[in-house]
């Protein structure tokens, strides 16, 4: 009997070990690429079969800042992201309200239509966007690139915001009007505080989307509107792995900070969701 119990316990602990190993491998698989980039970006003379770079240097960061003009590029990226977030939110609030609070004939159909840009490969309509923008002289302007980003950001904002508006409790609004608040007052004092978290999360998600967007930027960027992802791509093409690594670290840090910052406020799982009931 004791033998059996010991045997069972051994299996149980082996299970635990297995689970721990699995999680460890998973963590390593996700984080090691970044660690490798980080070491590459500060290493010097790292050739052959060495586990770690023999010499450390910040030279590649200096290169990244001086040669690839990363300050201007970061500025471009941020301007474009802010423009795209603003536009997507301005589109998302009214449409989200209509989808969330109103009875619309054919709502399902309309919603899946709005979500269509997320189902067609981006490169397919990026081609059209590029041609239209060439005609309208929107190529190589911050506004133009941001507008192209709105094509992918707006469906997302509409989806998140319509869920927010849908979750608004009718009784709270009634209570406000019973207490004598006029619609304007109701909006600013009751509705806005309630939907603010939704707006915030929509803004965060559209920001990340725009910050990371590559395909549409590649089709609409120019000399003056190069963004960080595009510059990284060009740097990879140029073949300077060390400088590219330094740039990547600069590019990746804000995303990770944002992720760890927002994890308590909004469910970050929503970042990858996006379709209800497909």
């Amino acid at each position: 009997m004791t033998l059996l119990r010991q045997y069972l316990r051994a299996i149980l602990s082996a299970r635990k070990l297995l689970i721990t190993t699995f999680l460890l491998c998973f963590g390593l698989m996700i984080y090691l690429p970044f660690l490798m980039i980080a070491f590459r970006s500060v290493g010097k003379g790292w050739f052959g079969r060495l586990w770690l770079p023999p010499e450390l240097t910040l030279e590649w960061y200096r290169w990244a800042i001086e040669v690839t003009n990363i300050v201007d590029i970061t500025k471009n990226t941020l301007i474009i992201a802010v423009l795209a977030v603003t536009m997507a939110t301005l589109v998302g609030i009214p449409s989200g309200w209509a989808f969330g609070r109103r009875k619309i004939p054919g709502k399902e159909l309309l919603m899946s239509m709005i979500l269509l840009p997320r189902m067609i490969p981006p490169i397919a309509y990026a081609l059209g966007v590029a041609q239209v923008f060439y005609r309208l002289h929107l190529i190589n302007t911050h506004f133009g690139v941001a507008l192209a980003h709105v094509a992918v950001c707006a469906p997302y904002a509409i989806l998140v915001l319509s869920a927010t508006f849908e979750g608004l409790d009718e009784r709270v609004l009634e209570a406000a009007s019973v207490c004598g608040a006029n619609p304007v007052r109701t909006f600013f004092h009751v509705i806005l505080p309630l939907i603010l978290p939704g707006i915030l999360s929509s803004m965060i998600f559209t920001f990340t989307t725009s910050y990371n967007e590559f395909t549409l930027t590649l089709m609409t960027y120019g000399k003056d509107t190069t963004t960080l992802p595009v510059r990284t791509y060009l740097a990879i093409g140029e073949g300077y792995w060390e400088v590219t690594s330094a740039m990547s670290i600069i590019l990746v840090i804000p995303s990770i900070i944002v992720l760890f910052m927002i994890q308590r406020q909004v469910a970050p799982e929503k970042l990858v969701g996006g379709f209800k009931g497909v």
Partner: protein
Amino acid sequence: MLKRGSKARSALFTLLMLLPGLAGFFGLFFYPMMVTVVRSFRPEGELVGWTGEHYVKFLSEPRARDVIVLTFVLSISATLCSILFSVVLCLVLRRKPRGHRFFRLTMLIPRVVPGLIGALGLLLLLGSRGWVNLFLIQFIPLVEEPIRFNYTIPGLILFYTWLYFPFTAVTTLSTLESLDPAIEEAADVAGANRWQVLRHVVIPLIMPGILAGSVLTFMAAFGAFSIPLIAGGNYRPLSVEIYKQINFTPARWSAASARAMIMAALQVAFLTFYMRILRRPSA
């Protein structure tokens, strides 16, 4: 009369509120898409005339079949790998092992950082001087030479899985967590062992969640562009093939558009097929 007036006004108001969304959809998606459609039927470099030659020319190339097959092989195998990996991961995370909050966040990392950076990191990690090969050479007795992962099809599938599994994992996890524990307890009481509970109760119940998530993974993998562009080497799926056409001087917009239309049509066709499987009541 008054009531009908206010009703009409309210409908008008709703329409007005929908307008920005619709304008965005038609201006930024539908119209460009139509431009692509029209362009794909124009003779190269001209803005008038109609021709179907770009479709015929591309589809009659023997390489076209390879490109299309490659695109499907990559995206479908990445989807399958993601499903397998996600199910195991979610079953583990569900038991709330130590640090499960951290691993939940870790799961999202590939979706939060730009895909290019992930691909760059994987290229470095799996390269001939990367840590994976160093590890294999030092600790696995049979491996003497570095194994080539980068620029091979298995390597690409690994890259795709790394980048796109979170879609599947997140939906699987949320479905798994909304599962009523009473159902499993019932199966347990009825005398099923752990494996039977998993096989006959848990997996069938979370299947809709898994499939819904895997649709997202498939779509992302099918349309993947930045990853095969930098990590594909000689393997060029449709998206890179399209981009190559406009990188010629002069740019071959019509040829690119025709390929884009073929790609979009294939994706929509496959998704329709997939949705049909999805909607089928599970036996």
